[in-house]
């Protein structure tokens, strides 16, 4: 329903599942934390403080690149990586809208199961009294 109208421009081209999938990993989340300063980082900087090898970090960066969460650039012989926040912003908006829709639907369910029987009983009672009068 209205979830589809949100952040449409971005996701119609790409789809969200690969972005969600890319985020479902501890190592990649920690890389994103480091890249959260929005500055370009070299692989050496991103490997620093991690128990993983350069190759392993590179592999994770490729996954993030494919999901367009991270962009790579080359200066001389060194690759640098920078965060693109748009796909993650889109996911947040998307989840917020899905979440809001469920809140509304569940509120309607709540009043449906809690109020509806009362209303029915009242109607039945009203019918009964009318019938009694006539």
């Amino acid at each position: 329903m209205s979830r589809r109208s949100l952040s449409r421009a971005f996701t119609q081209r790409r789809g969200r599942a690969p972005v969600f999938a890319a985020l479902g990993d501890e190592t990649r989340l920690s890389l994103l934390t480091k890249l959260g300063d929005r500055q370009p980082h070299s692989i050496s900087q991103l490997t620093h403080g991690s128990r993983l090898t350069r190759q392993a970090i590179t592999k994770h960066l490729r996954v993030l690149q494919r999901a367009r969460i991270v962009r790579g650039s080359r200066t001389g012989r060194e690759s640098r990586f920078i965060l693109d926040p748009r796909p993650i912003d889109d996911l947040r908006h998307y989840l917020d809208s899905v979440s809001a829709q469920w809140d509304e639907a569940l509120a309607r369910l709540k009043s449906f199961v809690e109020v509806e029987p009362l209303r029915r009983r009242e109607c039945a009672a009203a019918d009964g009294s009318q019938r009694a009068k006539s």
Partner: protein
Amino acid sequence: MPARIEKKIALNAPVSRVWRAITDYKEFGEWFRVALEGPFVPGQLVRGKVLYSGYEHLAWEAIVQKVEPERLFSFTWHPMKDDNSVDMENETLVEFHLKPTSTGTLLTLTESGFDKLPADRRDFAFRKNESGWTVQIENINNHVTQKP
């Protein structure tokens, strides 16, 4: 960011009442605002029309997964696109878990699978495989019929 949504809501109604509101397709339609064509049957597709203001042009589709009386009801669905086609990029699983409490029912709703691979790509892989087999069987048929 978790690829799932979880909501808990306390309902002042017995589990049997909540169960009916969720699994009777007419009652479901009333609070969910969708006019469904038929009942929920495990493994079957349910179609309907969205009654949500502004979205009446949309079709509603879900495949019923589990119906465990007064305990669990689940279905998979796809969000819709503007052109009223199904957004295959996003198949998610919706689950309603019910638990009796002293005041009524605790309902836990989850929607998960936002990180699942696009279903159309899976289908494509399957079709490719299947047509491969079809060709194989035809080849065998030809082989057998040509050489009696």
